[in-house]
């Protein structure tokens, strides 16, 4: 265990409940005062295949796992073989002795289940109990975590865990750090909560990994949050239904991944032309096409920035972790309605499905600006020309208002036109909205920096790789520059953040360097890129050696 750090791997077959076992272990670390992070790696299938989770706890804020692990919970033999390279001399292995041979402490899972008359799915609890004892975790903590975070059968699970706990011995104590407790949520949950905070009232989505867990989360909590959740026939319908909901007066959002977003692009362009607010959550996975459904990538940035025919303003943010995801999702809702534009929350598998520790007291209040609404004095014109470019917004059903929206070029009242002057006037109005938005966004911190302030070499990164980049920057004495807002691009704030930097290294999970290209387009040159595109997130270990090579 290096410093106040611990890493635990749990592995087994798909269907073995690896994800929930990982969550329990993450809660243990949380209870011990560590900042937890859970990376979950699984193939695109339901049964069989290898699943594993790596749970890391640190005294510092983290958003990435390590390659090396201190503890292994092996639910099958493959876990031991496959991850051998992650073991060090002191790695402690806990395993299901019925099916695994290894050096460490085996648990007679079948026997324990039989004795407790517990179903097979509770087998994990035995191995978790063994881990708790091996790591010197007090039984009270085990008891508290199981009771609070097991939706069903906590008592029986506890009895199963207790038997293994009593049979094992403590070999590597994880020292408690205190009693600060964070909330453990996934990136998708953070996005959902942020949108709810930002006024979400309807969510429309068609399942597609890695966005599906957001659909599931919002559907499950629809009543609690007071929202309507719909799963229509395809993503074309998703997008158009959302626009209907928005036109009708609801704050609607959609969610998908790249393939589904392909089908949404005609609706996106409609939103741009008809000035209908909508929020789109797009969570990237490895492409092109079906690609690697359950693995990550940062290869849809330019697609998102350029999707849809014609020119129209759009707001795009790419948060790095759960805390940022909450905040920027709320901001995206606010901006979409204030400016009547499409707003994107660009995530990826790492962010969407990773479990992060967030400090509930730092879940900031989010601003919700009132809408510029119709005062009823003159006949309502949906596209009334104004200095800011923003027209007063009202909805059908408003007394005395005729609300006409249109996908064709239109005049101020929403009637189709081919008149050259009107076309220019309305285009200029949309361009002015973009300018107003850019001005407003100057009051937000849209480019975040970490690492060593006086450094002359910087890493530029975006989205989920921020966590790994800032660890590497810390280690090598570099600065990180992370634009969160991708459109409108914050050139000014980027340039300021880069003051004093003589060498700029761009780190991304794609093959072409999409942030690098965007920076170049905005007049910011770079010196080197470090790219990875195997679907797996960078870890500090691999990134460190790759950045070292391009540092001079």
């Amino acid at each position, binding site marked *: 265990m290096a410093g106040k750090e611990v890493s635990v791997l749990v592995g087994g077959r798909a269907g073995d409940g690896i994800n929930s076992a990982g969550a329990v272990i993450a809660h243990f670390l949380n209870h011990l005062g560590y900042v937890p992070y859970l990376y979950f790696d699984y193939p695109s299938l339901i049964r069989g295949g290898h699943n594993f989770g790596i749970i890391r706890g640190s005294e510092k804020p983290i958003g990435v796992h390590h390659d090396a692990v201190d503890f292994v919970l092996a639910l099958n033999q493959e876990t031991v073989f496959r991850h051998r390279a992650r073991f060090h001399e002191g790695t402690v292995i806990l395993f299901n002795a019925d099916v695994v041979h290894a050096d460490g402490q085996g648990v007679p899972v079948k026997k324990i289940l039989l004795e407790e008359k517990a179903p097979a799915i509770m087998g994990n609890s035995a191995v978790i109990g063994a881990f708790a004892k091996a790591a010197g975790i007090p039984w009270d903590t085990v008891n508290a975590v199981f009771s*609070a975070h097991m939706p069903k059968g906590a008592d029986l699970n506890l009895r199963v865990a207790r038997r293994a706990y009593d049979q094992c011995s403590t070999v590597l104590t994880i020292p408690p750090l205190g009693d600060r*407790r*964070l*909330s*453990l*949520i996934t990136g998708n949950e953070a996005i959902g*909560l942020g949108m*709810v*905070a930002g006024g979400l009232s*309807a969510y*429309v989505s068609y399942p597609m990994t890695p966005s599906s867990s957001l659909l599931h989360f919002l559907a499950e*909590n629809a*009543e*609690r*949050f*007071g*929202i*309507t959740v719909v799963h*229509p*026939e*395809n993503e*074309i*319908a998703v997008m*158009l*239904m959302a*626009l*209907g*909901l*928005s*036109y*009708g*007066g*609801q704050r*609607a959002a959609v969610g998908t991944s790249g393939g589904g977003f392909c089908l949404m692009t*005609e*609706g996106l362009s*409609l939103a741009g032309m*008809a000035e209908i607010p909508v929020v789109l959550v797009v969570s990237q996975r490895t492409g092109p096409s079906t690609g690697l459904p359950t693995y990550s990538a940062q290869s849809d940035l330019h697609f998102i920035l350029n999707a849809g025919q014609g020119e129209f303003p759009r707001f795009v943010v790419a948060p790095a972790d759960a805390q940022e995801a909450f905040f920027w999702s709320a901001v995206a809702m606010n901006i979409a309605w204030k400016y009547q534009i499409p707003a994107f929350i660009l995530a990826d598998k790492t962010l969407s499905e990773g479990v992060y520790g*967030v400090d*509930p007291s730092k*879940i900031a*209040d989010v601003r919700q600006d009132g809408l510029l609404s119709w005062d009823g004095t003159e006949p309502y014109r949906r596209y009334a020309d104004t200095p800011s470019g923003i027209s007063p917004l009202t*909805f*059908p*059903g*408003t*007394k*005395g*208002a*005729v*609300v*006409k*929206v*249109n*996908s*064709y070029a*239109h005049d101020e009242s*929403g*009637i*189709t036109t081919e008149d050259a002057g009107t076309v220019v006037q309305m285009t200029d109005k949309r361009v002015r909205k973009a300018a107003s938005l850019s001005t407003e966004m100057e009051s937000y911190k849209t480019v975040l920096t970490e690492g060593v302030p006086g450094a002359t070499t910087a890493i530029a990164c975006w989205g989920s790789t921020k966590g790994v980049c800032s660890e590497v920057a810390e280690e090598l004495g570099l600065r990180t520059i992370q634009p969160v807002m991708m459109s409108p691009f914050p050139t000014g704030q980027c340039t300021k953040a880069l003051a004093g930097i003589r060498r700029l290294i761009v780190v991304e999970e794609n093959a072409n360097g999409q942030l690098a290209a965007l920076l170049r387009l905005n007049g910011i040159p770079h010196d080197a890129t470090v790219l990875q595109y195997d679907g797996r997130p960078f870890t500090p270990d691999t990134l460190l050696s790759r950045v070292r090579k391009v540092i001079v």
Partner: protein
Amino acid sequence: MTERPLITDAQNTWCPGCGNFTIQHTLKAVLSDMEKEGKSLDDVVLVTGIGCHAKMADYLNINSFYAIHGRAVPVATGIKLANKRLTVICCVGDGDAYAEGLDHLIFAAKRNIDITVLVHNNRVYGLTTGQYTPTSPLGFRGRSTPSGTPEYPLNPLELMLASGATYIARGYTKKMDQLNHLVRGGIGHKGFACIDILQICATFFNMTDFYNTRVYDLPDGDKGDFLSACQKAREWDYNSESNIALGLFYQRSFPTFEDRVIRKPVQKPDRKGVIGEFLKAHQ
């Protein structure tokens, strides 16, 4: 209350003799009757696709969502979900709803969302100047099928019956009184209403003589029998020379999508409190 003018200043660009005029007059008459009966037209929304039919959005002075080709129906579904009080009417084309956006039509019927869909079925792509559509007869010579389409038409009434629509009718633009009756019925029907309107396209496919010699009216009476509706729907398959029934084919009452989805009126929860609770439960 002063009645609003129902027609906008937009210049009308339909061809002389176009059946769309009949549909426009019908809608205007229906709307003005509704207003006279106390319905506020502020609560009516028209959603259109793209095509000659869709110009209705520009011409009628009511709330409108001039959408994109094939996509009026999902937009209308969203609007109805947003605000159940609204009366939502779609004007769609046969290319629009039976080709480009067919999936949405089937699903709207399956869900029984309470909207009324008027299909301006001129059996040709009007606005793109005369290509065959899903309801053009075999051998139709359009600009994309100069030697005649090799495809048989599909029968939209049969399709709507199979999909679960709860109000299915066929009208004809040369029979305006009947059309008025059918449209009013569709709007009054609580559930998914689809009215296939045989619409004369004076320029690209003028079927006036063909229709005039074959149409007849279905008798009034109970329309709840699915099998006899199927039988009636099959009498003319949009290809044969048989007689063509006009009127209401099928109607039944059935719970609507919006009533099922919006289980109870969504009261504004204390969002901050709910989020705080969630975070606490995950500590």
